[in-house]
């Protein structure tokens, strides 16, 4: 027993190589994997199938909580259901009132832009996915959603929550996809202050209900309760979707930058259902270098490339022509806007 010193390790001949050699082998293999995974799309296929292999286990792991939710739902009382129903009816009425002038407004907007036809909405189709209850990493803000490339989901797709922007897809498997939330410390979303149109970038903090805007000068016109919407720059998110509401602005005169915090509008930690959206390719609100087709996951670069913003489509028609509906101006707009009837 006393002989078990540091030198006691004696590899049995003919069984396996010494652990030091094996470790070196595995370390080199890991390093090669990391190198090629960092380098881009080489291992994206491998990752795709690994995610596919992981999916059954993830489903199995999430099944107890899913079963629990199902039980809760099926034993909900009549009273609570009625309460929910009346609340939904009320919401529906409110929305109907708000959208009742929507048609007229789109018409008016088209006239102001000098277009013959009103623009269709930027989101041409959408898909509802459900969050799978599975822990990806306690320190990062990621969720797994039960829709993947078989449903047409692609890497870098915009994901919306109930009340606002949720995040974008990061890795896509055949039946599932990993969504990075806007509050992840590695995520940044280009935003615009709705009140005055000033642009900045909202960066995640790693905390599920706070974003920070680190690049604002002290004299920037921003105040608490300001609404932040996506600006459409950056090539991932379409413009105009609500992101967050500013909660705190601290201006320290000694520092060049203001410290601004905002709370995301989508309840990131409670949303069960998320919406993937596909946008119209040539729409002015669509991101500049939009990927619109469900692309081959092996070929897609994950990182949104910083592209120069496309100039907004300027209405070239004279105002006189724009005011009359029937003015036949066939190709007045030089912007690649495809005016499709809604």
């Amino acid at each position, binding site marked *: 027993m006393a002989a078990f010193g540091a030198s006691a390790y004696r590899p049995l001949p003919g069984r396996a190589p010494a*652990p030091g050699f*094996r*470790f070196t082998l595995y370390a080199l293999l890991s390093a090669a994997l*990391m190198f090629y995974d960092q380098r881009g799309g080489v291992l994206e296929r491998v990752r795709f199938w690994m995610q596919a292999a992981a999916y059954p286990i993830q489903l199995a792991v999430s099944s107890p909580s899913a079963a629990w939710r199902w039980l809760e739902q099926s034993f909900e009382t009549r009273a609570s259901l009625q309460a929910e129903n009346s609340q939904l009816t009320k919401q529906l009425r409110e929305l109907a009132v708000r959208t009742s002038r929507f048609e007229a407004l789109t018409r008016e907007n088209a006239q102001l832009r000098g277009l013959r036809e009103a623009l269709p909405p930027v989101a041409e189709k959408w898909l509802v996915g459900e969050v799978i209850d599975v822990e990806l*990493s306690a320190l990062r803000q990621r969720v797994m959603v039960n829709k993947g490339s078989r449903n047409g989901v692609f890497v870098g797709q915009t994901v919306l929550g109930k009340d606002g922007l949720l995040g974008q897809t990061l890795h896509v498997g055949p039946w599932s996809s990993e969504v990075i939330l806007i509050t992840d410390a590695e995520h940044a979303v280009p935003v615009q202050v709705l009140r005055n149109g000033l642009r900045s970038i909202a960066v995640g903090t790693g905390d599920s209900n706070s974003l920070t805007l680190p690049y604002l000068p002290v004299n920037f016109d921003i105040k608490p309760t300001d609404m932040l919407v996506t600006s459409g720059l950056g090539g991932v998110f379409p413009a105009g979707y609500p992101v967050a509401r500013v909660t705190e602005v601290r201006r320290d005169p000694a520092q060049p930058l203001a410290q601004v915090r905002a709370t995301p509008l989508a309840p990131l930690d409670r949303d069960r259902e998320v919406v993937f959206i596909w946008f119209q390719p040539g729409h002015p609100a669509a991101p500049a270098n939009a990927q619109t087709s469900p692309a081959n996951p092996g070929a897609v670069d994950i990182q949104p490339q910083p592209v120069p913003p496309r100039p907004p489509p300027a209405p070239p028609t004279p105002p006189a022509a724009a005011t009359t509906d029937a003015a036949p101006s066939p190709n007045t707009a030089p912007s690649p806007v495809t005016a499709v009837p809604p």
Partner: protein
Amino acid sequence: MNAVAYEPRGTMIFSALVGLVLQVLPLPAWLAVGRPAFLVVVVLYWSIAAPRAGGMTLGWVAGLVIDAFEGAVLGEHALAVALITYLAIRFHLQIRNRPVLDQSLFAFAALALYEFVVWAIDGWTGHPVNSALRWIHPITGGLIWPVVVLVLGSQPTRR
């Protein structure tokens, strides 16, 4: 030296799967932060208890599985787990001779090293998470080590 021939591969793979499930089980956020890396602890146990049965291959594959589940850079956790299984295999005879509490200390050190490697690679690959919370799980991992030894059998102290 009976333990050298002890190769419970079935138990090993099953316990690794259970460890994986425990590691990805959804928990409330405040609890998830303190959750030990069960799969790594189980792999560590087997590299001490039966170094020839699974050994570094088990560790490396387990690490790759963690990479796939966490969406990390492929090879990141694989390298970290392979490193600590290497240490565990290299010193398994000394560790086995120790009382369980000393082994807990070793488990803590190994898990801290694992987390350090992951943290370093996170930083190098441009995905830094500099939260102090990430250093909690080696402590809880060390704390549950006696339980793991109890559950998976008393092999480490058997000679």
